[in-house]
């Protein structure tokens, strides 16, 4: 199928196989730059050498732009949020604490200092003032930036859009309610468009190679160059969105001697729909992927909706999620049961590996030192007449949290019986795992609650999770068991409706704005 999506190539995969042979190497002196170029609040910057290895947040603060705050330095609080626009794309909010300057070649960046136009405040700023959206103010720059980003589309915001848009920002003072009100009271249609004030940077189609202190960073414009670099630097770390790598840099003193970015290889930014599958290039962000599966794979969309935060999804990629290889990577259970495949490109050419077979153990992969993951082929699998799919993520906090447990359950059903089952669990072993005993048990069983209760015991026996900071072994074992019953009720029974003060739970609810004078008017009338 083909659907609407930000970037559609339509190019069949088969024509793209001749990586090393045809792309050729243009004269390097013509095409290689030793610095990166970007703009900050419209001012042009070029940075090379040692400074290019700084995080954007540290760079900004060293430059005296201290409106951008660093709190956690690991993408989990949003205090460091800035807007970034690649080329002529839209402004997207990202965490500047885990963005390396290296990733920002050709970007236009807007910080909190650039949101107001001189003395004239942006409507979100005025609204935050009017609605007491700031108390201590430390989170406020991040919120203002994220909110300004939300208004860029010029569309009115509803409560759910506001909450989803601000999930990546923590505030310890306000209880968020004043911030939600501030966002809802902003007239997005009347907000000035930052993309008009801060134009994008034109791409000069040159590769970037920066070396300093024995470290090298290479961002070629062709896949051929990338593979050659990877062949010559087997230990090179590929830097994609950096939402994993950036955290290691800040928190584990990670210091790769060689880093490779694929960001300038345009073809890897493509996402294409083919017959019942979606082909996702290595540069495709999780946000783009989320949009692509909204209508095609709603179950997966539900998982992506609660994946990290907008900041994380705007920077992070599907390929990064797969290549990082965490047993609690949220996209993996689906990719396992749907039978997704990876396209790997190396000096020897291209090969395909099923995602499921890519993992050999904790963070060890079927990936040669010279190989790069170029694409993911994601089959479209969704609930249909004879097929039921459910995906689960259990975490301490529902939003912006790493999973304690994940599951994908896919059943083929036939006249009240289970014809076949495919089940993958995450968070219960060093890698995401298929559950063969459980699948075998379920095959042929009747679709009734008892089946799933009994299956729970099988599931429990099939795994041996560990206790860690996200949950005890017993908790995880219980989830392995319970998720099957939850699945049964979710998939085959009607939920009992919940009504709260006239609001159906799950439906967005609009607070009444403040009254004219004195005390704010409340959601429900005052006597």
């Amino acid at each position: 199928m083909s659907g609407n999506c930000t970037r559609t190539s339509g190019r069949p995969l088969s024509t793209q196989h001749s990586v090393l042979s045809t792309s050729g190497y243009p004269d390097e002196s013509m095409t290689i730059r030793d610095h990166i170029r970007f703009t900050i609040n419209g001012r042009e910057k070029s940075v090379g050498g040692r400074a290019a290895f700084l995080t954007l947040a540290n760079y900004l603060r060293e430059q005296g732009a201290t409106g951008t705050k660093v709190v956690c330095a690991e993408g989990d609080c949003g205090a460091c949020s800035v807007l970034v626009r690649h080329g002529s794309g839209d402004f997207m909010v990202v965490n500047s604490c885990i963005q390396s300057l290296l990733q920002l070649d050709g970007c236009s960046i807007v910080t909190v200092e650039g949101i107001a136009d001189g003395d004239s405040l942006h409507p979100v700023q005025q609204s935050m003032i009017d609605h007491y959206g700031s108390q201590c103010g430390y989170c406020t720059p991040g919120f203002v930036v994220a909110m300004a980003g939300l208004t860029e589309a010029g569309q009115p915001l509803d409560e759910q859009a506001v909450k989803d848009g601000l999930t990546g920002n923590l505030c310890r003072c306000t209880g968020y309610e004043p911030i939600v009100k501030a966002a809802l009271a902003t007239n997005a249609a009347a907000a000035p468009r930052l993309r008009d004030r801060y134009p994008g940077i034109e791409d000069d189609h040159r590769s970037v190679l920066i070396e300093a202190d024995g470290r090298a960073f290479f961002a070629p414009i062709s896949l051929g160059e990338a593979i050659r670099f990877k062949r010559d630097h087997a230990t090179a770390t590929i830097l994609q969105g950096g939402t994993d790598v950036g955290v290691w840099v800040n928190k584990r003193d990670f210091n790769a001697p060689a880093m490779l970015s694929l960001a300038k290889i345009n073809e890897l930014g493509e996402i294409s729909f083919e017959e019942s599958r979606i082909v996702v290039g290595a540069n495709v962000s999780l946000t783009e992927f989320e949009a692509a599966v909204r209508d095609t794979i709603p179950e997966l969309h539900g998982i992506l909706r609660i994946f990290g935060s907008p900041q994380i999804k705007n920077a992070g990629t599907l390929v990064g999620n797969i290549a990082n290889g965490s047993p609690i990577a949220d996209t993996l259970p689906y990719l396992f049961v749907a039978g997704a495949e990876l396209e790997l490109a190396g000096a020897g050419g291209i090969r395909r590996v099923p995602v499921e077979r890519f993992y050999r153990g904790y963070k060890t992969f079927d990936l040669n030192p010279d190989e790069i993951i170029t694409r993911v082929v994601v089959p479209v699998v969704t609930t249909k007449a004879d097929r039921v799919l459910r995906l689960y993520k259990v975490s301490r906090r529902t939003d912006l949290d790493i999973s304690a447990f994940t599951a994908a359950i896919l059943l083929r059903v036939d006249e009240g019986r289970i014809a076949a089952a495919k089940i993958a669990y995450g968070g219960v072993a060093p890698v995401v795992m298929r559950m063969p005993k459980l699948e075998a048990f379920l095959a042929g069983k009747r679709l009734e609650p008892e089946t799933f209760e009994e299956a729970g015991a099988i599931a429990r026996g099939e795994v041996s999770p560990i206790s860690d900071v996200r949950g005890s072994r017993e908790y995880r074992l219980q989830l392995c068991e319970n998720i099957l019953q939850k699945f049964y009720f979710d998939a085959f029974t009607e939920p009992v409706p919940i009504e709260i003060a006239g609001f159906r739970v799950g439906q967005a609810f609009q607070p009444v704005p403040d009254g004219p004078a004195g005390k704010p008017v409340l959601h429900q009338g005052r006597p």
Partner: protein
Amino acid sequence: MTAVERKIPHDSAREHVTGEAVYVDDMPPSRGELIVDFLWSPVAHGRIRRLDVEPARNIAGVVALFTHGDLAHNRFGPSQIQDELLIAEDEVRFIGQPVVVIAAENREAVRAAKAAIRLDIDPLPPVFTIDEAKARRDFIGPVRKIARGDVATAFAHAEHVLQGVFKTGGVDQFYLESQAAIAWPGEKGALTVHSSTQNPTEVQDVVAHLLGLPAHKVVVITKRLGGGFGGKECQATHPAAMAALVAHKLKRPARIAYSKDDDMRVTGGRHPFQNDYRVAFTSEGIITAVKVDLYSDGGAFADLSQAVMARAMTHTDNAYWIPNIEITGTVCRTNFPPNTAFRGFGGPQGVSTMENMIEEISLFLHKDPLEIRMRNCYGIEERNTTPYGQIVANNQLPRLMRDIGERADFRRRTAAVADFNAKSKTHLRGIACSAVKFGISFNTKFLNQANALVNVYLDGTVQVSTGATEMGQGVNTKIKQVVAAELGIDAGLVIVMATSTEKNNNTSATAASSGADMNGSAAADACRRIRARLVEVAARELAARTEDLQPSPSTIAIANGMAFDRRRPQHGIAWRDLVRAAYLQRVSLGERGFYATAGLDWNAEKSSGSPFLYFTNGCAVSEVLIDRFTGSARVLRSDLLMDIGKSINPGIDRGQITGAFFQGLGWLTNEEKRYAPTGELLTYSPTTYKVPNIQDLPQVFNVDWIENDTNTLNLRSSKAVGEPPLLLAISVYCAIKNALSFVSGSEIPKIDAPCTGEEILMRLTEYARKNARKPQESAASA
């Protein structure tokens, strides 16, 4: 129009939203500035066998390394128990305790120095739980007791008795701005310290004491904090003292800014409590006796643990009159960082213990929990003395309880919840109410004083300085409003200055919700005196300008920026001209105000007296939804109703209510400190430590307060609002307990806070197993 009782924006709102607001670590580095950090003990309890800093000395960029011997004094503490050491000597008592202070040119050098210093520690047996400390009788300070009536007899004759252990966990303040300070050396050995502290005077005292300086040589300045919540009440002294040590010794500016991870690891948080309770009651739900033994985990040093315990003890009665009651309070010593102030300051731990008992009584008797609360509520004329002897005056609690029941439609929704739970196989709902009566004032009497400096300039603009620190709570905005209202001018003419020990000496911490009450009152005192002088001037000026008018100060009014004689209101003199005239007549245009809260008396040894000026009250109803299979819970609806007197700034007060409620929510639901067996904190960043997120807002969230203008004891009949609403989140805990009661069979469900999804799932599983064995009707269906 007066400047108070109005929604004027937060004083710094514009600077917040533009990023202009400067916090300590945003200040540009000054010439020669050094970075300060410290090597800490990686062992929870042990004896230092060897400490060798020499290998670190030659590292490029390392400028100096200091140990305890470099301090004039090492021992200090915010209470009389001066048991704390800034830098460990021979024994280490918690992971995170400073051992070596490092001064360096850059971060890489700091890192290298930490790696190079050799620190060998012989481990000693650590204490990590309240039970262990109790077994060893390792307590901090004396065990205190509040008692009234005859508890033994009341229990002996009780119709029903329930008992148990109620636990609440430790939480991190998680202010977004981590601890930070910058120290500048000055002439004559003086120091200027910029500190993100709630208590500049204490920073001044501690720095002066540890460095052997007289107090007048240390100036501490606090522009604003990126959140404090108690965490910077006395633990801001440590980083400030380390920066001051470096600046003092090396005569170079020195900056320290903890990373969030380090901050969470080395500073203390809210005290975990583990309380033994027993409650006797009649079949009608009237409580006849309560016996509660409160135990807190104080950590390694005393810090404020005794005062926190005193507040827990004086809040265990909460909103209820209990004829026979005995409350003891014991602070246990463990090998964790010293626990410290955190919004509520023990109040939440005391109140939740009582609310849990009431919830259990209602479950036991199958009676409406709001009704039980009303039956036991403090009376207006009688049954209105607390166990420690203070009269609950101006009591709005009965009204709040009645109103919240109606507003939240409590009874109808209780029935709807039961109906849903009978039908739904996938989810459980729970609904509950809770109340709070929170005493305002520091329990320590002498802390209830404040001073303020008000300067009026020749153009009519005004500067105010007080000891209050602005940390988001809006104290500067309120003080600005009060000053403008007292002087009869527009709030735009008033600026509240950075807090500085140079302008306001010997001030108390901005804490105990009383920052605006006390500092606002001191500022009002100064304004009244300036105003009195200006009234004299105005009387003379107006008389001189108006025919047939004799000077008459008693008929002069200053309002809306004009002074006029009420007898001839058409002739006015503009504020600015009045100020100018006063100056020309050599009348002082500056004043220092003072305020000491009247009528307080508290005997700490006996735990009795009237420690509070008044009580701030509230009630809440919350409803939760729990996934039966995963244990995940969310709040569907919360209704909060408070009595906060006459609000000086309704917009700011509302934000205090919503924000405090959310902090309480985190404390009781998802915020959990998990430790390795070594005592090392594992949840030291927001990746693993989960404070509430925007998506955790209740689906329906009603926040309101009643009209009450009778609190004339306090500044402009207002009431403090910073801490009390935090305790309204106890309604969420009770709602979770209520939900569990639908599956716990005949037993009363027990759950420790925080009620994480894991904790809830474990309880659900336990009850499912038990009830599968002996099926019977659910306790709550009756």
